[in-house]
């Protein structure tokens, strides 16, 4: 047996690859296929699906016309679900914008420090990656809470008379998402900026370009791969986020993630949840594939 493995390259390959292939096919690809199947059948009464399966396009039609469902009332907004999708995409863009707007100058700042400082600051950027996401979200929640530190402070210095509602609204969700995903933006941009040759800026300056023009014409184009990577790395998880809108939005802000989650909780409409998950996945994959097509192998390696 052992000798057989020593002799045969094919046997070695099968031995090495089969556990990974089997596990991923069984617990990742097959579940996705099942989800695809379930998104095309009718719902069961209390979750699950109707047996024997009845094929239908209802779950996708409902997404584009919320009133198509037999359960809809008289005051029904046909664009309810599409609106939530649009809303999530908008939140994701706002969050991505702020992550890049704050993260790019930070990456530049870090890259200009002396090596020791640079490493120390980068460790500060990396620590949140390894910290429990729930714990971080909770840390922000307790600061913004009605009886939290920020409100007490503002009332203490007599800036406000009664506590502000800083939680359970879209502002809170945005802040929470920026808080959660800012480090994701810094890492790829830092990788890009660190490799940038800063003498090019001096060259541009010597050739008469004012700093802003040197930045726009030289530095930004050359560090753009990092910015685009940051865009993808923030946008993708934010658009499908569940934990932050649920905790910071307190059930009042609906995003795709919370909407999908509800189909498996109170709404008990599993097939509809499956169809929305698929649409979300396709949405995200389009973004990722566009990114991979546009970026070169080299820039991806840099990450």
């Amino acid at each position, binding site marked *: 047996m052992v000798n057989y493995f020593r002799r045969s*390259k094919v046997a*070695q*390959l099968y*031995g*090495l*690859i089969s*556990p*990974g*292939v089997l*596990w*991923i096919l069984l*617990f*990742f690809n*097959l*579940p996705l296929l*099942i*989800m695809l199947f*379930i998104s095309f059948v009718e719902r069961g009464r209390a979750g699950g699906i109707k047996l024997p399966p009845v094929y239908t396009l209802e779950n996708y039609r409902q997404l584009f016309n919320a009133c198509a469902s037999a359960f809809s009332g008289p005051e029904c907004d046909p664009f309810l679900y599409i609106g939530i999708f649009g809303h999530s995409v908008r939140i994701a863009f706002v969050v991505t914008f702020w992550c890049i707007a704050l*993260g790019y*100058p*930070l990456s530049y*700042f*870090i890259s200009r420090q002396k090596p020791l400082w640079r490493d120390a600051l980068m*460790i*500060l950027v*990396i620590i949140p990656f*390894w*910290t*429990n996401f*729930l*714990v971080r979200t*909770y*840390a922000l*929640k*307790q*600061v913004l809470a009605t*009886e*939290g*530190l920020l409100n*007490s402070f503002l009332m203490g210095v007599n800036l406000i008379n009664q506590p502000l509602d800083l939680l359970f609204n879209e502002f809170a969700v945005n802040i929470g998402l920026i808080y959660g995903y*800012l*480090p994701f933006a810094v890492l790829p941009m830092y990788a890009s900026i660190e490799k940038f040759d800063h003498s090019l800026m001096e060259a541009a300056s010597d050739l*008469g370009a004012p*700093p802003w023009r040197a930045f726009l014409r030289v530095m930004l184009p050359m560090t753009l791969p990092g910015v685009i990577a940051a865009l993808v790395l923030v946008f*993708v*998880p934010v*658009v*499908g*986020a569940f*934990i932050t809108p649920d*905790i910071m939005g307190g059930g009042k802000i609906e995003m795709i*993630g919370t909407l*999908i989650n509800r189909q*498996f909780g109170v709404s008990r409409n*599993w097939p509809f949840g*499956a169809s929305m*998950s698929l649409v*979300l*996945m396709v949405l995200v*994959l389009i973004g990722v594939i566009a990114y991979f097509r546009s970026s070169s192998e080299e820039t991806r390696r840099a990450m």
Partner: protein
Amino acid sequence: MSARSAVFPAYPRQQVRLTTRIGNWLLGGNAALVFGFLYLPVLILVIFSFNNTRSVAVFTGFSTEWYFSLAKNVELLDAARNSLLVGSITTVFATLIGTLTALAMERYRFKLRTTFDANLYLPIVIPEIVMGIALLLFFNQALFPFLQNVFGLRGTTGLHTITMSHIAFDIPFVYVIVRARLADFDRSLEEAAADLGADEWQTFKRVTLPLLMPGIIGGALMAFTLSLDDYLITAFTKGIREQTMPLYIYSLVRRGVTPEINALSTALLLGSIGLVGLSLTAQSGGPVYTKAMSVGAGLGLGSYGLLGLFRLLSSGELTPGGLVIRLLLLAAFVWVWRSYRGFREELADTNRSGRILAWITVFISAAAALLSAALFFL
């Protein structure tokens, strides 16, 4: 030079300096703002975990009562134990499978190689909730009905389904980390080993594996952290009774803000920082740190085994299960003894600051191992 300045009038030096000075202030201010934003809430969280009243806004006095109430919370201890169990099994399997897959993908050429490579990245890029839903549907609508109809077995969700799912989403992360390490691998070292008469297996064991170790340990720590922290996939694959740490915290956090959560969060933060430290030293430091971790882990487990054995002997009740566990843990001491020699050799080649860091690594690993063992076999 002069001909060029005629075409592009040079900006006065003074103005350039002024702009950079303001620019530096702005950059520094932005950095302070961002780091303040990222770390102040965490700092406040830690401070108020030591408050002696229930307030998380006014600090009235120092107290550690919330930590003591944590240690007595049975529900929490159960959840922590479950998390550790799921996390360790996940780490072992995901690290093993991920490493094997990385080796196969980097060292062999075969059909569908690029397709499978892309497929391995998918679990990383698709939203976690999608994977959670897919697994929920898979277990409840496909696997369990299948087991019922074909074998007459009744499948249920529980810690085992959580573990299987965690392994599935951790394999890609280990794969990516180990493969990056393999891509930078200097293959002439393997050729040298072959030239010196080592066969393929010896080369792998004595050359390839030790050089890959930092990547493998980095991947393992990553897998462990991801598994311990995961809420979404766990929430969709969990059973009715058992919960894990994130599920327990989530239920608390949704209810409100209390100093107990602050204390619990602080404990978790300490754990995370320890893990990051270990991971970074494993990946960027030399072999002395990986050896230090091995020594530390063995030391922690072994000392727990020793403590437990004393208690077992003094109480006079020799239950076979307890004895086996203690003996297993004592075997950790033998392991330490063996790895300690290698560690000492490496230590001799390290400079002063490196030696201090290595001993700190031993200490942290030992503390982590002792704590986990204590929690686990309590």
